[in-house]
């Protein structure tokens, strides 16, 4: 294959990574931005999403379309409920103290990981894609499902953006993000908003996992890479900035796809980590971050 088609293939692979990463990172960014909490367990919500997708697909008795649709509904709901329970039982009792919640979410990470190991096992298990269509281009054929992942992620991101910018819930979330005390002084139940945002962040990670699991397989340790990459995206994009998260996810995803294909995946991770270091030194608030009260 010549360079041009090779680059196109790398970019398509990068776009798939960027699509899933932007959903996962958006969840982390919302929690980070609104609640000022570094959720170290975010990758485990992603992992739970994938494991529950396998379970939901197995309930469907082998029909990949029904299994996928079932996973798309059940998995985010269960992960959201677990996140809400964690928020009520742990984070709220710590009064959302930034240092204490880091330690608490590290604990949550291990609890969820070990629970998955105990209940699901150490094997990597495949989930069938809902359809197997191959798009034939003049230079190579490409998975129709991967293009669907890009389109579905883009639609979800647009929907999230519309919720945040055009609805009453979005207004309430943004007010809480900008100034918690003033939000309360205008009748906003900040604790409830926190619960909702933590659940929403986890659900976005779970949806991303359901979308990617037909490509990657579900495994109880699969939460580590999404967590690292999501932190990279959130730091580069800026705390709580939807636009920053999307642009950073696109940059990291595309560079990961291209560098992994032409050089090596390790080099892609090294460059992403270097980019984070440079952003932290020269623009600590991120490319699109703003000063917070």
């Amino acid at each position, binding site marked *: 294959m010549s360079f041009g088609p090779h680059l196109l293939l790398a970019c398509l692979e990068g776009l798939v990574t960027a699509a899933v990463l932007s959903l996962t990172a958006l969840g982390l960014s919302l929690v980070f931005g609104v609640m000022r909490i570094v959720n170290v367990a975010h990758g485990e919500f992603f992992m739970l999403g994938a494991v529950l997708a396998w379970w939901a697909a197995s309930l469907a008795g082998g029909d990949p379309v029904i299994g996928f649709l079932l996973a798309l509904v059940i998995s985010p709901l269960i992960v959201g409920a677990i996140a809400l329970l964690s928020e009520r039982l742990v984070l709220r009792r710590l009064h959302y103290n930034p240092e204490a919640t880091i330690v608490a979410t590290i604990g949550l990470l291990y609890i969820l990981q070990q629970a998955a190991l105990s209940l699901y096992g150490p094997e990597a298990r495949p989930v069938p894609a809902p359809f197997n269509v191959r798009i034939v281009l003049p230079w190579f054929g490409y998975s129709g499902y991967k293009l669907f992942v890009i389109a579905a992620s883009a639609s979800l991101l647009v929907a999230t953006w519309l919720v945040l910018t055009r609805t009453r819930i979005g*207004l309430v979330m943004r*007010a809480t993000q900008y100034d918690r005390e003033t939000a309360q002084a*205008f009748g906003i*139940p900040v604790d409830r908003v926190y619960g909702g945002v933590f659940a929403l962040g986890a659900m976005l990670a779970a949806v991303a996992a359901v979308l990617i699991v037909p490509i990657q397989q579900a495994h109880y340790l699969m939460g580590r890479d999404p967590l690292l990459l999501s932190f990279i995206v959130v730091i580069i994009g800026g705390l709580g900035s939807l636009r920053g998260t999307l642009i950073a996810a696109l940059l990291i995803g595309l560079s990961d796809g291209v560098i992994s294909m032409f050089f090596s995946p390790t080099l892609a991770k090294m460059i992403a980590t270097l980019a984070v270091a440079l952003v932290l030194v020269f623009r600590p608030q991120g490319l699109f971050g703003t000063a917070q009260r």
Partner: protein
Amino acid sequence: MSDALTITGLDCFYGEVQVLREFALDLRRGEVLCLLGRNGAGKTTALKAIMGLVPAHAGSIKLGDVELTDLPAYQVPKAGVAYVPQGRRLFSEMTVAENLDIGLMTRGKGAATREAVLELFPVLRERLKQRSGTLSGGEQQMLAMARALCVEPDVLLLDEPTEGLMPSMIARIRETVARLRERGVSTILVEQRVDAVLPVADRVAFIENGRNREIVDVQRLRDDPHLVRRYVGVG
């Protein structure tokens, strides 16, 4: 006049430090009551305690018959108290319209309330789509008051609304407070400067070391400048 708000025996702490000590106050219906005192006297804490933003360790804050200390902070504005914080505390990344929407949501008020508020502050109508952080200082203060008035409050708490404003803007703020009094809104106004208080207040409470030392009619304050010197340190 009956009381719109009654505070008795209020104790509040920041950590280990006691900021309000057996603080007591009565706000009559439709009056403008000013809290005067030095920096750190406890004026802002008193307002925050009314809003539930600083917990009451002991004592009572009653809005009519409703005990506010029993309510979570987010229900205090729904009961009819609106707050204009010191330094305005606008949602500066949001537009003027969105800031007003936050106020309107508080008690489920709609377009009629918004129109009435914009009639009080017509300059805001031209800036509805502008990001509030880009407004001038005076416009930001108007927006902070407009946002609070969107709550349609029975009691309005204003924390140093004239701070850092030009004299013409200070006059506008006073004029607005006077118009609100005509509409029956009871107002607690925190100020450090006596000259900002005299033209608009009905009574003045002198706050010192977390206590309300004395409440006087504004006419007595005009007649006896020593009172001000005693509590605030300037005449």
